[in-house]
């Protein structure tokens, strides 16, 4: 779907070393591993290491190990990416070592590409497996004709809601954001909020913009093209500016924060537009059993039916001695029914990227959601209604932080709209400082 060329890949490679110097870890061997000859399959017993922060992933790997004596996988349990995990991976890469596989979030894949940290799996024949994966997710790991990670989990968006509270205020479950804004005041009159809007976790706002059809950055022949402050995104920003100004949503308790858990337990939160992985978190709300249901996310009058928040990949790191075997394991882990079921059972992952299989336990009616088969009813269809044009960029996390800083000014009279416009300008600056080519989209 994207026209990206070899030239662009070269551009990334060249700027990669400059970025590494800027980042303060001048990496020995920043030449791309993807320019070197393909490593042939070992043909003898190999042991792979996998660094991931999912819990009990070794138990999942053991299922594979039992069936594949020639490819054994050892999992190291490391801290979450942004709580030190990535730093650890970057250090290991810089030292010329590191694991064969690592858990890298979708949004962080381009950042790893920038320091030549990932193996292009296209060269190891990954395309024959492409059909097994959700198309949108596959697009997010595909750059310039290469594939830089195997999708591992994701979070399609739906709306969790409390039927009893909706009934209490006499509101219908909104199918569009316009209806959502219409029914929201009724909850305020009853001392509740229809939802909360996190000012400092911008991944939620990003998901809303994504759903509306925005694509903030895309890679083109002549570098990156930014279209963050597009009308689509600004409309979404305006919508939530209004919602916050009218006190329809609370900004004082981010979803799943301690304050939010307390408010939800106290029947003050009527619904929550969030990702599929929120199901396990809702179970942490005191006395929530049986009270919640799931509906499709409200829609904009353009764009897509759903969106997603979060998601990670099993990526093959540049210094792997056995990329081919690592890729085979990653494909099994994330598409084989046995792998998926084990990931749900042991690691508690929120959604699987396979096209044909969502996991046996996810098809069951859920006791917590009052017997609703919410996964097949809501989240599985949601995966079919995603924005396929969305692409992450090499400084995603930094853009999120910049945007979050802007959003926080909302508390002192700023607006989300201003924050988006400012974040676009700042993102362009940071790109240029890193030596990356970027231009504004024509609009």
């Amino acid at each position: 779907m994207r026209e990206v060329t070899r030239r662009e890949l070269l551009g990334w490679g060249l700027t990669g070393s400059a970025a590494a110097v800027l980042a303060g870890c001048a990496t020995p061997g920043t030449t791309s591993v993807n320019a070197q000859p393909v490593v042939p399959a070992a043909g003898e017993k190999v042991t792979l290491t996998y660094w991931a922060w999912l819990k009990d992933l070794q138990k999942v790997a053991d299922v594979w190990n039992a069936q594949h004596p020639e490819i054994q996988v050892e999992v190291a349990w490391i801290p979450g990416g942004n709580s030190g995990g990535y730093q650890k991976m970057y250090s290991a890469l810089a030292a010329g070592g590191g694991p064969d596989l690592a858990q890298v979030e979708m949004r962080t894949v381009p950042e790893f590409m920038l320091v030549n940290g990932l193996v292009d799996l296209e060269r190891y024949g990954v395309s024959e497996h492409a059909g097994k994966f959700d198309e949108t997710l596959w697009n997010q790991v595909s750059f310039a004709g290469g594939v830089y990670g195997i999708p591992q989990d994701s979070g399609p968006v739906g709306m969790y809601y409390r039927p009893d509270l909706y009934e209490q205020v006499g509101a219908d479950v909104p199918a569009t954001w316009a209806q959502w804004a219409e029914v929201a005041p009724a909850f305020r009159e009853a001392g509740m909020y229809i939802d909360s809007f996190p000012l400092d976790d911008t991944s939620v706002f990003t998901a809303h913009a994504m759903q509306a059809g925005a694509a903030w950055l895309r890679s083109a022949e002549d570098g990156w093209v930014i279209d963050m402050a597009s009308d689509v995104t600004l409309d979404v920003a305006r919508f939530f500016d209004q919602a916050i100004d009218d006190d329809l949503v609370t900004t004082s308790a981010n979803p799943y924060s301690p304050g939010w858990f307390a408010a939800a337990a106290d029947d003050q939160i009527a619904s929550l537009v969030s990702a599929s992985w929120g199901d396990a978190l809702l179970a942490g709300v005191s006395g929530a059993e049986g009270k919640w249901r799931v509906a499709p996310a409200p829609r904009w009058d353009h764009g897509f039916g759903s969106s997603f928040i979060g998601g990670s990949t099993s990526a093959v790191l540049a210094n792997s001695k056995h990329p081919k075997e690592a890729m085979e394991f990653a494909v099994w882990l994330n598409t084989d029914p046995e792998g998926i079921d084990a990931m749900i059972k042991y690691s508690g992952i929120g959604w699987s990227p396979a096209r044909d299989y969502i996991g046996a336990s996810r098809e069951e009616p859920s006791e917590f959601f009052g017997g609703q088969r919410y996964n097949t009813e809501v989240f599985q269809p949601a995966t079919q209604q995603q924005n396929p044009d969305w692409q992450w960029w090499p400084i995603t996390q930094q853009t999120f932080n910049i945007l979050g800083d802007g959003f926080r000014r909302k508390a002192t009279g700023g607006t989300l709209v201003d924050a988006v416009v400012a974040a676009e300008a700042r993102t362009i600056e940071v790109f240029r400082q890193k030596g990356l080519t970027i231009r504004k989209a024509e609009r």
Partner: protein
Amino acid sequence: MTAATVSTAPAGAAAGPEPGSRSGTTGRRGRRPATTILVTAVLAVVAIYFLVPVYWVVVAATKTTDDLFATNGFWFGTSFALFDNLSAVLTYDGGVFVRWFANSVLYAGVGGLIATYLAAAGGYALAKYRFRGRNLIFGLVLGGVLVPGTATALPLFLLFSQLGLANTYWSVLIPSLVSPFGFFLCRIYADATVDSSLVEAARIDGAGELRIFHTIGLRIMTPALVTVFLFQLVGIWNNYFLPLVMLSDQELYPITLGLNNWRSQTDRLPEFYELTTGGVLLSVIPLAVAMIALQRFWRGGLTEGAVKA
């Protein structure tokens, strides 16, 4: 002895005379009451600031995950699940927490002891022997005090990877064996307290240099050594970044790294809140014990040598 027995016996009877005797003590010091009140108030605020998080941990560790956010954070919830939580902490994943705990004790205990010994030896040598370049050495080490440990972690990791020592006990232990600050403190302290004529006398009696250091030097320097040991113990116990980059086998993890792994899980699995708070509660105990047991040495240590006798 008898007086103590009497005052502890019936609480009501002892309550009478006590306040009187206490105010008598204050009066004798001749301090202005306003100053006393002000200083006490500031200290009380500081104490509250430091103790409230600990209190929160104690309270939170007694709650179930359900109660954790649904009930008042500063008072006990409806259920009392402390022992359930602690047993969950100790048994989760085959008792891996116990392993992390033992690792931390090893890194901090052994690292702290050896670092103290090395700092004492270095500081003593620099204070008591005259040789060319001693001020240069002192200057270099002093420079080392100014470099934060985090900044050296990455170069150390590259070095240890080359040596094939990354992801072993040594990779965390060896960097913990040096304490530039301890060296600095020991030199100053040895300068001020270990009398050169005492060393001379020992030499005349035929004691070797090592023996003088071990039997005289170390003993005189004890207060400083306790200070250095405590600093190093706390420093290693709380170190996060070095083990983070060095270790990838969770069997080698210290408690800081392990607890952070658990905390990362709360993004998806809220039951890890209880494991984490329970683990935090257990992990502060050794530090509290070390502080309380060793603080009397510390108090003596910091003032000595400050004034020339």
